[in-house]
């Protein structure tokens, strides 16, 4: 099975990288961009009997490893 997961900073955590990217957008002439928040994106191949089992497994992995729950949220975007 193939899955995708994204990890993003919680809204109240400062993201200086995102801010720098937002400023760079402005420098390029894209003044319309008012905010950028940077995150991480994972493509994962795994063995699981069905999507429900995969979801459970991926949730555990995201909790324990892919994200640090003090500052980050995660979302399983797709399982197929």
């Amino acid at each position: 099975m193939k899955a995708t997961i994204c990890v993003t900073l919680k809204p109240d955590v400062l993201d200086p990288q995102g801010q720098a990217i937002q400023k760079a957008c402005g420098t390029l002439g894209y003044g319309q961009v008012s905010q950028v928040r940077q995150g991480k994106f994972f493509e994962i191949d795994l063995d699981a009997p069905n999507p429900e089992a995969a979801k459970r497994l991926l949730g555990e992995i995201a909790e324990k490893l892919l994200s640090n729950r003090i500052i980050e949220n995660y979302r399983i975007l797709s399982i197929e």
Partner: protein
Amino acid sequence: MIAVIQFPGSNDDRDMLFAMKTILGAEASLIWHQETVLPAKTEIVLLPGGFSYGDYLRCGAMARFSPVMGAVQRFADAGGFVLGTCNGFQVLCESGLLPGILLRNRKLHFLCQNTAVRVERSDTIFTSRTKPGEVLWIPIKHGEGAYYADTKQMQRLEDNGQILLRYCDAEGSVTEDANPNGSLHNIAGIVNERGNVFGLMPHPEHAVEEGIGGTDGLKILGSLLDAALARRKA
């Protein structure tokens, strides 16, 4: 006996060994991260600075899974003395031995500079050679040193007196201008509730000789050594 843990990517391990062995005259050895047990006589575990596992995923996140970290966890749980500087602090946070996390510096710059930190408490095993309010000059060198924890956790750190070092100006005033990296409450170093695990971003092992940065680092490393010797005699 002091165990200096060596992860792939550690780069202050030998400086730590030099400070402990050559300067302070203690018995110390490098312990490779693949070890699953610490030497039987281990009294102090030091987690050095560097870029363990290339800082993959998050700083300190992969080192947590090193075989040796299980032994370090058991050592800390049994009341053993553990000190982590810089990447070592990040590893302690990712391992759950200390609360919170170190985020990218507020202004994104990698900082490499001598820094003033104020001692908040001198009644701990890590600061017994200092006085409360004393200003220590110890270098920092990091890209991700902005301490962060949620509001509840920050309150707990303050209430329990777990903050041992704060960034300050030369006079010892804890101000926003004196905060180099955006750490909450100007935190430069915190101890766990039990008081046996200490993490700090400054590098005491880089301030151990007059003429190259001064000797303020020895006040911290020396305090820890005193505590280990006192425990040995007890």
